[in-house]
């Protein structure tokens, strides 16, 4: 079990900074998820920790030791690949024992470790099979088993669930979570799926992509999942976490108080957000953000701000419904979530309320203003 520490880690391909100035501390036993849009470098960062990619500048410590220029085998890490990468000509047993053989471990000890891992992963009846005789989920478990037997300080997972179908994905996700609970090992997990990130992580590291990486560094925000959900540091984080995406309404500041800011939207509607926007002047263009699950149907009561819109599209999922509203306040659609079924039909005019304590506000630079939330809305 080892802690992982990155100090100002960079990776350059020629002039392009793929990974820019990453400072990260992953505690011993923590489950850390790297998440972000395509091209943000999350896989690259993982491979730099593994030793498969060179670190252009900066320092990497694993288990208190500097490992920046060490080869992968000396770092005390084990990796589970997206495509499993099992050796096709070896049985499950041989696949798991290969690394131990190369490390010149005694046969008895190697056998014990392989059988123990097979036991944890329910692979014991499959030990003599070849990979081509296994299903996708079974192959994934063999890949995980191969990592477990090495008893590494850190487990590295590179999008391990992408090649599985939806039902198997949920099941394997739970197994990985249980594995983490059982082994207590540090794990770094890369995914583009924010649901996996939210459900598995002790700590989420959300990475920037494109221009923003060059300008602001690779890490958009890192912290506990609910921290990123309730207090996103900027508009990018707010829009990435949560599905469907947060609604963004452009507007201008009218007045700012320590616990409440009044803004006016494009069509003159006045709304209030429970944020402290005193650092900018009135008339500054800002963006109001509110998640679909926090918008309430119904006319506004005194103290709560409201909008009217026409239902352009309705999605019924059974467990919830999503109503997409057309409104003069923005060019796109406002998504609103409702528990269970809805009786709203397309074309209907609907009134919604936007409670101030659930409104986020972002400045012209995209940075969030500090929210004033009462104690009950802080679940973390």
């Amino acid at each position, binding site marked *: 079990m080892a802690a992982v520490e990155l100090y100002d880690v960079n990776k350059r391909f020629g002039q392009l900074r793929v990974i820019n100035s990453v400072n990260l501390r992953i505690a011993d036993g923590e489950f850390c998820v790297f998440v972000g849009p395509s091209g943000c470098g999350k896989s690259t960062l993982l491979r730099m920790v593994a030793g*498969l990619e060179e670190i252009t500048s900066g320092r990497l410590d694993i288990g208190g030791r500097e490992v920046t220029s060490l080869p*992968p*085998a000396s770092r005390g890490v084990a990796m589970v690949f997206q495509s499993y990468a099992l*050796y096709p000509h070896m049985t499950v047993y041989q696949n798991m024992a290969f690394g131990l053989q190369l490390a010149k471990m005694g046969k008895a000890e190697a056998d014990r470790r392989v059988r123990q891992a097979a036991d944890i992963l329910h692979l014991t009846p499959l030990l003599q099979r070849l990979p081509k005789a296994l299903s996708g989920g079974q192959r994934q478990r063999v890949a995980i088993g191969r990592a477990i037997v090495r008893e590494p300080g850190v487990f590295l997972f590179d999008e391990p669930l992408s090649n599985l179908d939806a039902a198997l994905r949920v099941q394997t996700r739970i197994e990985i979570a249980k594995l983490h609970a059982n082994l207590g090992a540090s794990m770094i997990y890369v995914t583009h799926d924010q649901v996996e990130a939210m459900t598995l992580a002790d700590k989420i590291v959300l990475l920037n992509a494109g221009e923003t990486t060059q300008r602001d560094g690779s890490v958009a925000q890192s912290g506990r999942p609910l921290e990123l959900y309730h207090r996103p540091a900027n508009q990018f984080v707010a829009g990435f976490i949560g599905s469907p995406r947060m609604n963004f309404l452009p507007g201008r500041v009218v007045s700012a108080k320590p616990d409440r800011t009044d803004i006016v939207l494009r069509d003159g509607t006045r709304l209030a957000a429970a944020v402290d926007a005193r650092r900018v002047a009135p008339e500054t263009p800002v963006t109001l953000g509110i998640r679909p699950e926090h918008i309430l149907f119904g006319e506004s009561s005194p103290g709560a701000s409201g909008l009217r819109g026409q239902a352009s599209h309705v999605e019924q999922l059974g467990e919830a419904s999503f109503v997409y509203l057309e409104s003069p306040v923005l060019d796109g659609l406002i998504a609103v979530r409702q528990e269970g079924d809805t009786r709203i039909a397309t074309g209907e005019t609907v009134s919604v309320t936007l409670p101030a304590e659930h409104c986020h506000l972002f400045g012209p630079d995209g940075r969030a203003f500090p929210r004033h939330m009462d104690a009950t809305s802080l679940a973390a």
Partner: protein
Amino acid sequence: MKRALRRVGLYALAAVIIAYSVFPFYYAIVSSMKHGSQLFSPALLPPHLDFSNYATVLQQGPFLRNIANSVFVAVMVVAISLFIGLTAAYALSRVQFSGRKPLLLTVLAISMFPQVAVLSGLFELVRFLGIYDRPWSLILSYLIFTLPFTVWVLTTFMRDLPKELEEAAIMDQASPWIILRRVFMPLLWPALVTTGLLAFIGSWNEFLYALTFTLSPNERTVPVAIALLSGATQFELPWGPIMAASVTVTVPVVVMVLIFQRRIVSGLTAGAVKG
């Protein structure tokens, strides 16, 4: 009715092609059992099952030694080609270095040289190394035409092996040699058999270099030995023993191809293994 006609036509065509390919070999077997003037009559079946020509050939002179020479040369050529080919293919397909593409093209270009053009240069080299009239001169010279296609085919196959497989092995603490031997080689069997067999056949049948670089009858390989078989008089070619010798040296190659034929087909068609 048309269906039946087409069927018959297909089988007839197949029969013609088979006859065309197999007949020379069959006739050689038949001729090897004939004597004297029987050889000049086009009988399709041997008059008796007579193996005396074989006895003549095998007991006369150093023919058995020549077969041993051929085997030695061919096996060494295959072993060295595959070893150099595999290691070169690993470097050319898995290691990034500048000049990779030009190097591959150069390797391919070398195989296009006509054998005769290189002959005099090779002769100097063989003499300088002191291996004239030894099997090693042949082993060295055959590498010129076996290495290019071996390297080329193995590089292409290795390029198609998934990168993640190699990375998994690196994470397992495997050195490049271990990766080559225990991870890649088992996956490359079809390619290895194909190139190995082609290299074997090439060296087994080669005549020009074998004629030029060997002098004493003991050091000759089989094609040269057969060509230089002499008869009772200067004007007589001993067709019977010649046919017997040819059949003797062709049979091993045919048997090997039959054993490995499945592997050859999968080697030429399949390509990579998806892990």
